[in-house]
């Protein structure tokens, strides 16, 4: 059932665009029914996962590669999958209004569903190869969605960048998966989980770990691969909200959490995963401070959260994993809402620049309310779910050392600041005049943010119920052992709470001085970031490709042939020289006079075809070669070949004469020097072929299979001419193919002769 579910989303990806043909515009509300239904079904699976008996499905796909279509819906998978389809439902509704006037909305929905299906597949796969396939589908759909507005060059460049970074990481991950399969003896995740010691003591553990981490880090935009994420903001805003904040970028985090029981729990894991996460957290938090574009602000703060999540998985304590699950959920709720708000602001006012937005509360009250509450959750204020998440992160930090705690506080500060700039700044203060006259967004565009913030509030107010259950089952999967989590809004006045209070107050102060801060920090901007190296690498590869293309694909046919012949001659020649005991058996005794005469005729005619200055002469010489070859067939027991050759040769000559009537006379076009070069190459090729024939005549590697045909021709096929029997009976299908080829060639000739391109009219 869960497999059918996953593939039904892919089916929707193919069907939904069909509804949009001929200018029809079905509403997003209708289309959202599918993800809504999937969400409801996934939610109904939760009790089973919580009881430790998750729904599974398995079908043998390619056993010899260890690939099977196996799905498993345990707590972590379901948490992630529900997040994907739930937010997906809102994004589908939202896009219907956001892209109302876009003529490619059908295509947009198609790729959005491809993405959704792939993401659900990533979440539910129990086989690592299957997971990889879905993983690559998410990269691909992300590419198509970032580049959705493909007329914009910046969108295309950002799409390519995201694809190259995540796709490259995906390839590394594939290699890592295969190594992990070698080390653990299986590619089934549920089976790997019990093989922890075997995997970690295996010599392939370290390479497998590094390669898989590369895949996870590129996908989740971890330092130093983080630069693609802010650039991916070229995508339409619903895509940014969905792929590049709530779901896809968390796939790496999901994979790390998923593999934590197998790969984690040692120093290498802790320092690599935790360290990279820490760096990403710091980089994202810092870079967010001086952005003024709404979406880039959100993108960098997303980076800081992604870094935090990765770091927490690296730390790996039960409390850290609990923080991961809660923060993942809380961030998806508030950041999804804020992204959608940013889109609404852009849509209704025509700008995303926070310095040009202000005082919109009156014009857009519902959006403003949703934005405000989401911002409170992001800043980590009670009674919102974000508060619980932040308290857990702080408590985890306090379990470790004060340096780590300082870094976490910096992240918290940055998030309070961004929450203010995005969620509060545009709506309060003096009304700033914008290009479009602002008014409230349509219901489809405020419903999403409103629902998401409503959930933030509910989950914050009542943390004991559903959210505790979800988090407990998810954390149990990530920890590899049963963990009971009891979330609570109020933990009492403890160090974490005091630090958090301090963070919020400082953050508000920073927000008050936001314009000064931005200007100061902008002066410190640094150009030698990883993006610089990405650009240089890309330039370098393009230069290399150009040089290589110019060398190998010059457009001169003769050069291609020369390369082929020289490669063949030297490759085969080198092999011939290496094999010592090969002799060239020359025997000139066994021939009749007329045979030699025919051979001489062929060689003479071939020479004539080369040197004769007239076209008709050359064609006649070619014909003589053909007849000579036919006579040879006749002498050596091949009357069928001889007859065919005679007939075809005559036809060919006629064809050549007809065609040459329309073609120009022979001209000597090449210089004497290049002719000398060509003679050398031609002789080299000829000598090689002669040598090959002389050797091959005396070599018999396997007994000829002709004996079968000879023995069975009369008995089975009731024919006496064995060549004919082979062609029409034993290998009848091949002859069928041959006739098809001739038919196609005939159609091609007809088309070339009859149809002309109508030029001039259009140009």
């Amino acid at each position, binding site marked *: 059932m869960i497999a059918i579910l996953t593939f039904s989303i892919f089916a929707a990806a193919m069907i939904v665009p069909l509804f949009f043909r001929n200018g029809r515009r079905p509403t997003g509300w209708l289309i959202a029914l599918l993800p809504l239904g999937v969400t409801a079904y996934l939610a109904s699976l939760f009790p089973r996962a919580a009881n430790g008996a998750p729904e599974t499905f398995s079908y043998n796909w390619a056993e010899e590669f260890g690939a099977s279509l196996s799905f498993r819906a345990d707590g972590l998978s379901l948490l992630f999958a529900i997040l994907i389809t739930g937010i997906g439902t809102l994004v589908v509704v939202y896009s219907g209004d956001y892209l109302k006037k876009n003529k490619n909305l059908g295509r947009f929905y198609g790729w959005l569903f491809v993405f959704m299906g792939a993401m659900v597949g990533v979440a539910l796969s129990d086989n690592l190869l299957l997971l990889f396939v879905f993983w690559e589908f998410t990269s691909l759909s992300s590419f198509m969605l970032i580049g959705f507005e493909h007329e914009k060059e910046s969108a295309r460049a950002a799409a390519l960048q995201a694809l190259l970074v995540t796709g490259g990481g995906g390839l590394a991950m594939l290699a890592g998966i295969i190594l992990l399969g070698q080390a653990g003896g299986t590619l089934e995740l549920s089976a790997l989980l019990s093989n922890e010691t075997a995997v970690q003591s295996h010599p392939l553990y370290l390479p497998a770990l590094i390669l898989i981490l590369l895949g996870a880090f590129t996908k989740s935009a971890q330092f130093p691969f983080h630069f693609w994420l802010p650039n991916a903001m070229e995508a339409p805003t619903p895509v940014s909200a969905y792929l590049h904040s709530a779901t896809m970028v968390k796939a790496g985090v999901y994979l790390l959490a998923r593999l934590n029981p197998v790969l984690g729990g040692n120093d290498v894991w802790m320092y690599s995963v935790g360290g990279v996460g820490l760096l990403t957290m710091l980089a994202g938090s810092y870079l967010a401070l001086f952005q003024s574009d709404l979406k880039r602000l959100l993108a960098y703060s997303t980076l800081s959260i992604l870094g935090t999540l990765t770091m927490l998985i690296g730390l790996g304590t039960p409390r850290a994993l609990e923080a991961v699950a809660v923060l993942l959920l809380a961030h998806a709720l508030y950041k999804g809402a804020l992204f959608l708000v940013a889109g609404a602001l852009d849509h209704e006012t025509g700008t995303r620049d926070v310095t040009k937005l202000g005082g919109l509360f009156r014009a857009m009250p519902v959006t403003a309310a949703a934005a405000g509450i989401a911002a409170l959750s992001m800043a980590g204020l009670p009674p919102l779910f974000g508060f619980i998440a932040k308290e857990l992160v702080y408590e985890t930090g306090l379990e470790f050392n004060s340096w780590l705690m300082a870094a976490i506080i910096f992240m918290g500060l940055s998030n309070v600041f961004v929450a203010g700039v995005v969620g509060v700044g545009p709506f309060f203060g003096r009304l700033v005049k914008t290009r479009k006259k602002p008014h409230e967004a349509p219901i489809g565009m405020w419903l999403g943010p409103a629902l998401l913030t409503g959930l933030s509030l509910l989950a914050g107010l009542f943390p004991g119920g559903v959210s505790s259950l979800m988090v407990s089952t998810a954390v149990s999967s990530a920890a590899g052992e049963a963990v009971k989590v009891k979330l609570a809004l109020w933990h009492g006045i403890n160090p974490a709470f005091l630090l958090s209070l301090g963070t919020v107050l400082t953050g508000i102060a920073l927000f008050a001085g936001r314009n000064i801060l931005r200007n100061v920090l902008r002066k410190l901007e640094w150009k030698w970031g990883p993006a610089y190296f990405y650009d240089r690498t890309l330039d370098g590869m393009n230069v290399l490709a150009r040089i290589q293309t110019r060398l190998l694909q010059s*457009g*001169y046919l*003769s050069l291609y*042939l*020369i390369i082929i012949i020289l490669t063949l001659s030297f490759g085969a020649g080198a092999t011939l020289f290496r094999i010592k005991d090969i002799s060239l058996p020359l*025997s*000139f005794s066994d021939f009749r006079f007329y045979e030699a005469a025919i051979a001489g005729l062929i*060689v003479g005619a*071939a*020479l004539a*075809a*080369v040197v004769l200055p007239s076209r008709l002469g*050359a*064609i006649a010489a*070619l014909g003589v070669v*053909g007849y000579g070859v036919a006579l040879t067939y006749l002498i*050596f*027991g091949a*009357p*069928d*070949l001889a007859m*065919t050759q005679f007939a075809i040769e005559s*036809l060919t000559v006629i*064809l*050549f004469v007809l*065609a040459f009537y329309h*073609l*120009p006379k022979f*001209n000597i*076009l*090449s210089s004497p020097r290049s002719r000398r070069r060509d*003679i050398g*190459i*031609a*002789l080299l*090729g*000829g*000598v090689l*072929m*002669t040598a090959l*024939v*002389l050797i091959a*005549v005396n070599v018999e590697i396997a007994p*000829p299979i*002709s004996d079968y*045909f*000879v023995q069975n021709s*009369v*008995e089975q096929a009731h024919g006496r*001419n*064995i*060549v004919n029997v*082979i*062609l029409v009976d034993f290998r009848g299908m091949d002859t069928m193919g*041959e006739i098809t080829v001739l038919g196609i060639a*005939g159609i*091609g*000739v007809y088309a*070339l*002769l009859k149809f002309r391109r109508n030029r001039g009219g259009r140009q």
Partner: protein
Amino acid sequence: METILAFVIGALYAAGIYMMLRRSLVKLLIGLGLLSHAANLLIFTVAKLVRANSPVIAAGEQTLSTPHADPLPQALILTAIVISFGVTAFALALAYRAYKSVGTDDLNEMKGTDV
């Protein structure tokens, strides 16, 4: 006789390659023809030559008497002859169309992708 045919094949290959390296479209096609003769003859020769005894079973017999010519390479060559005729016909039509469209038969002039 195999030795002599080996040299004939080498000569045909050399002639064919040389013609295919020319810049004239027409010569290229003649080279192609020479090359296909060379290839057919190569298959024929490598399978060992047997004079006269063609692979046809006499009436009343169940199988061939040895020595006999090998039927399998003959079937291959028969296919090759017919296919190379198709290729030649198509190539000639293509050459004709290319010459009419581009206005030259110099292959070195035909290296751009834009018409």
